[in-house]
């Protein structure tokens, strides 16, 4: 790994009204690194993830992507977002478009790429995530696992510099979790820079370069997965792991 920072959060604070959801969060993610963010519900993991492409604004601190401060709004922000792929818990495929149209939309409308070129890339991405045969169907006709894989293909079609996953398997039936995690694991192996908010400890162990543990809006500790799961330093992390790993 090059140790060239791609995403840098510095002392980020965020309030929802009186609720302090991100407290002085500082996190650096290098190019090609896979950081898995875990922690109890309400710990600020999703907010952290969403702040990186400014779906949530922050109250203080700074977030830099690829050496540049996040733009506040307008075209510059749209351009930044086009370089950061995002996968949501609820898939959010465009309901009125076919799977193929979903995947082609970004490159065609944001990047102004030709339809022919985009179509080819979209089909090969759908093939890669294993749903090429579903290209012409509407999202509602696919299973949850298939929809989420389509959503990953849609994000990858923009050839992003990094991918953000906000609890990508939390809305899936258990038997479909594996197929989505497989796609994510292969992405990680190919060197995609990823921030993954998840409750899948197995994925964290297998695919993460680093685990970041959050609780009550704070980034409590970060360590390589073997170290984190084998020997968590903080009391908070030990407590959390004892609860999630028991079952």
């Amino acid at each position, binding site marked *: 790994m090059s140790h060239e920072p791609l995403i840098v959060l510095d002392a980020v604070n965020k309030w929802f009204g009186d609720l302090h959801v991100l407290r002085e969060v500082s996190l650096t993610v290098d190019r090609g690194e896979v950081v898995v963010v875990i922690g109890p519900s309400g710990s600020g993991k999703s907010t952290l993830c969403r702040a990186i*492409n400014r*779906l949530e604004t922050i109250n203080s601190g700074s977030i830099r992507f690829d050496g540049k401060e996040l733009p506040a*709004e307008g*075209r510059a922000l*749209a*351009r*930044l*977002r*086009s*370089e*950061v*792929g*995002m996968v*949501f818990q*609820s*898939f*959010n*495929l*465009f*309901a*009125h478009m076919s799977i193929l149209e979903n995947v082609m*939309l*970004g490159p065609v*409308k*944001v990047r102004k790429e030709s339809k022919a070129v985009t179509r080819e890339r979209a089909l090969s991405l759908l093939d890669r995530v294993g749903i090429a045969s579903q290209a012409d169907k*509407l999202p*509602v006709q696919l299973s949850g696992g298939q929809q989420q894989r389509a*959503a990953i293909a*849609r*994000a990858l079609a*923009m050839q992003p510099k990094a991918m953000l996953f906000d609890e990508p398997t939390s809305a899936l039936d258990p038997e479909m979790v594996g197929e989505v995690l497989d796609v994510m694991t292969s992405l990680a192996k190919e060197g995609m820079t990823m921030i993954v908010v998840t409750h899948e400890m197995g994925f964290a162990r297998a695919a993460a370069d680093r685990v970041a543990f959050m609780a009550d809006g704070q980034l409590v500790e970060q360590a390589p997965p073997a170290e984190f799961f084998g020997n968590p330093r903080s009391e908070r992390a030990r407590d959390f792991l004892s609860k999630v790993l028991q079952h």
Partner: protein
Amino acid sequence: MDVFSDPANLQLYIDGFLMILKLTGASSLLALVLGLLLAACRVAPVPVLRAFGAGWVHLFRNTPLTLVILFCYFGLYSAVGVEFSEDIHVNNYWLAVVGLSAYTAAFVCEAIRSGINTVPLGQAEAARALGLTFTQNLRLIILPQAMRSVVAPLGSILIALTKNATIAGVIGVAEASNAMKGLIEARGDQTIAIFLVFALTFVALLVPVGYGFTALANRLMVRR
């Protein structure tokens, strides 16, 4: 019923309803375009546009249409001097279209805005995350889904507009209700028959519109 066996009376009846269709046709197109723009204003991230959209809706939705049409004649035309044509009939027609459109656009806007609220927030977020601008988001993601969910209410607005077109009569446009009034004044002995013919013609025109829009709404519904 022999009132309609007189060719001149029959022509009055036919011309009256043709005028209703002409008023409705032009006004519905203008109201749809204007309503879409107003709805876009109402959800825009720019406060001035939101205030403009809200102001329009509050003003026109809460003013009687008769007043709006009378204003178009006495205000826009007589006082301000807005003139569409030298021909008084053509001019009055367009003044009525302006009034009907401005009034109906307020209702179209609110229908579309309620349609926008039926589109899950995640759709707009996913579009923003891809790098789509606000206008692209609205045009490609939000409105196509919102419009499909407001087909039925837009049908109701179109039906209301068709009936409201009779109010153009107050500034002398020769539409159906004026024709009816003329015929009743000429043939007081057949008032009920004349009234029924006009009323049932409206019903016959508009019942299919209602069914048509319901069928369209079912076919276009976005499945989630």
